[in-house]
């Protein structure tokens, strides 16, 4: 299921004095099973890009192909798109509305041709994926019967994500999924994303959090004022911290610490963006220090 975005431009308020060019001639390709991060300053067009890929907006120019099919072609099956591509919007907990968690998670399955048992199984799987384990082997987790509106903030977010996962999308788009999460919630979410990725799901994640994207994404796209201005591995993107700054994306703490250690002569190579790699380097340094 590769996603191809070809020469896409998008404007708001066309033919009015308030015309805003949200995106300009964007082209990129996301392969199956990739984990791609999207970064950019507020108002750079990230949300517009997501809405375009989900078919919620129609581009002024250009084409968006999913699995080789143009999603804005008249004959394209929109239901198919809804099944293959799931979006977790910013603050997804605001979409909860049903009387029980179970019903809310099953909402996305309403129009699918599944038996009752299959649906229940999907709901149970989705809830387990976001960390709600069932006590018994067959029944749903305890939370399934509760009202989603009476849960805590973190639980609500997980239920909302389960509601998207239940439909079994092969492509998942996350829009600022870390906003408003505490450190443990952040880590929990990132591990969930990594787990889904390892199971073969294509993941696109929009975030301001450079450390999170660098730690998990294969590739990062940088948008600035509606243009795609950089594309590459985390190491490439943050090779020159000054350039990243100019694109209105700050390097993560990991990369900054690596830079400091490099300047002090403790590191051979400052291009470390992954937390675990930095940790290993520091451990090595400490061991070397003890040795002398």
């Amino acid at each position: 299921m590769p996603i191809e975005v070809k020469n896409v431009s998008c404007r708001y308020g066309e033919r009015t004095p308030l015309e805003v060019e949200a995106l300009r001639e964007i082209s990129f390709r996301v392969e199956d099973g990739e984990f791609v991060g999207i970064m950019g300053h507020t108002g750079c067009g990230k949300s517009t890009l997501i809405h375009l890929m989900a078919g919620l907006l129609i581009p002024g120019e250009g084409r968006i192909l999913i699995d080789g099919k143009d999603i804005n072609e008249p004959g394209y099956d929109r239901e198919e798109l809804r099944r293959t591509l799931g979006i977790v919007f910013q603050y997804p907990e605001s979409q909860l509305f049903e009387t029980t968690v179970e019903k809310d998670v099953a909402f996305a399955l309403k129009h699918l041709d599944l038996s009752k048992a299959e649906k229940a199984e999907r709901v149970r799987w989705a809830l387990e994926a976001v960390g709600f384990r069932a006590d018994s082997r067959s029944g749903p987790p305890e939370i399934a019967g509760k009202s989603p509106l009476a849960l805590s903030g973190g639980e609500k977010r997980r239920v909302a994500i389960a509601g998207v996962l239940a439909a079994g999308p092969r492509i998942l788009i996350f829009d600022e999924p870390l906003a408003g999460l505490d450190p443990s919630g952040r880590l929990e979410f990132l591990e969930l994303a990594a787990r889904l990725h390892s199971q073969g799901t294509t993941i696109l994640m929009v975030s301001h959090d450079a450390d999170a994207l660098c730690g998990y994404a294969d590739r990062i796209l940088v948008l600035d004022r509606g243009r795609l201005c950089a594309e590459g591995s985390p190491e490439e993107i943050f090779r020159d911290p000054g350039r990243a700054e100019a694109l209105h994306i700050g390097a993560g703490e990991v990369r900054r610490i690596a830079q400091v250690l490099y300047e002090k002569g403790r590191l051979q190579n400052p291009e470390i963006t992954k937390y675990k790699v930095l940790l290993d380097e520091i451990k090595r340094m400490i061991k070397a220090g003890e040795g002398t």
Partner: protein
Amino acid sequence: MKKLSYVKKAILTAACIALCVVLPMAFHAIPNAGNIYCPMHMPVLLCGLVCGWPFGLLCGAAGPLLSSLFTGMPSMAYLPSMIIELAAYGLTAGLVMRFVHTKRAMADLYISLIAALLAGRIVAGASRALIFASGSYSMEAWITSYFVTALPGLLIQLILLPAIAFALEKARLIPARYPRTA
């Protein structure tokens, strides 16, 4: 949750008034939605039910007014009769809710809703007919046509409003009418 304070009622009313402007816009994408769902009626009825009749009255009067100012819908010509209709909804919903206590929250809710919807429709039909069609036939015709064409809308309100009220109560944003631990 305790009973609502005056300030909280006032701000909830402000939110309902704002929804009177926003909901019709949100429903704009659905074809013919304005006629069927009457999206502006929901916040007004809810305001009357939750905050009481003075606030319901205010919401019913101010909601269509602000909507007309900001979005041009309803147009000025319909504004007076619309204000009368919605104010009647808010007022009746609040009053009936205050005086009916069946010990069952849902029953109270339905009784108040039905009373408010009927009262509002009659008042609106009559006022429109009086202002624009002061003829012997026109008045009756207007009221009946108003009533008949609006029937699906009435039923939809009866389904939607309890759902909204239930969700708000679950989210602890409005107090329960008969708290279990009395």
